[in-house]
């Protein structure tokens, strides 16, 4: 219960953050990637602000040895730069550039507009399932 509640709280911070940052507007996201046109560098400030806070906080959190409601931190252990990482990330960039939605903003926008976000979210879930089928 405590774990679900803390996830709810963290999710709410994330949702407010995305909306305040303007990341729920796909036009703004695409303008960030449009470096030769109408460039909008705002997303760098989103990423920068988030990374600065998280980098500092993680140092203190990891120094605690364990999280509050779990036995261990669950961190990725893989270190190799395998083709899957590079190919998957390039594909993701293509989809992101085509529609201006990455997973967080797509989900966060579901309650904001009736049209685009739900189509994107359902297709995204299908894409994740498709990968699971293909990779077996």
């Amino acid at each position, binding site marked *: 219960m405590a774990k679900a509640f803390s*996830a709810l709280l*963290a999710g709410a911070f994330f949702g407010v953050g995305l909306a305040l940052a303007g990341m729920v507007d796909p036009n703004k996201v*695409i303008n960030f990637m449009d470096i030769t046109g109408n460039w909008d560098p705002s997303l760098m*400030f989103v990423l920068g602000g988030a990374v600065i806070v998280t980098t500092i906080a993680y140092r203190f959190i990891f120094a605690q040895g364990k999280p509050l409601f779990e036995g261990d931190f669950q961190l990725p252990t893989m270190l190799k730069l395998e083709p899957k990482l590079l190919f998957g990330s390039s594909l993701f960039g293509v989809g992101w550039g085509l529609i201006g939605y990455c*997973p967080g903003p797509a989900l966060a926008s579901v309650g904001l507009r009736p049209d685009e976000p739900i189509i994107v979210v359902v*297709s995204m*879930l299908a894409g994740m399932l*498709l*990968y699971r089928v293909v990779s077996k």
Partner: protein
Amino acid sequence: MENFTPYSSLAGGILIGISASLLMYLNGRIAGISGIVNGIMNTSSFKEKAWRLAFIVGLISGAFVYAYFFPSSVEPREHVTTGLLVAGGLIVGFGTAMGGGCTSGHGICGISRFSLRSITATMVFLLSGIITVYVVKQLVGA
């Protein structure tokens, strides 16, 4: 650069950083949205599903409450058809599952852990996004 919003975007980024820090401090988890969503479909454990769903509910509600107090509109995009949204969504889902993360998991949490994999992934999807937007603009003629 007429739509540049450095202050609100920095403030939003700080809130996202607080979110990622909270999830690690309390639950010991990476706040990567694609991973959290993918995990709902990937696990049979009720507890695993529960916290992940709770995070998504929080995410959607947080944005909804913010937009309730500070409404904004999105300019319609003519070339973005339902077909393009479906194709883009499929590619985003497939690509993030294959690459093991998205803007939040690799871009924010990964870079904050100085993970070479995440730093590489972030550079790759940013570059590929920039190229895609460039190509689309040439095709659409915008």
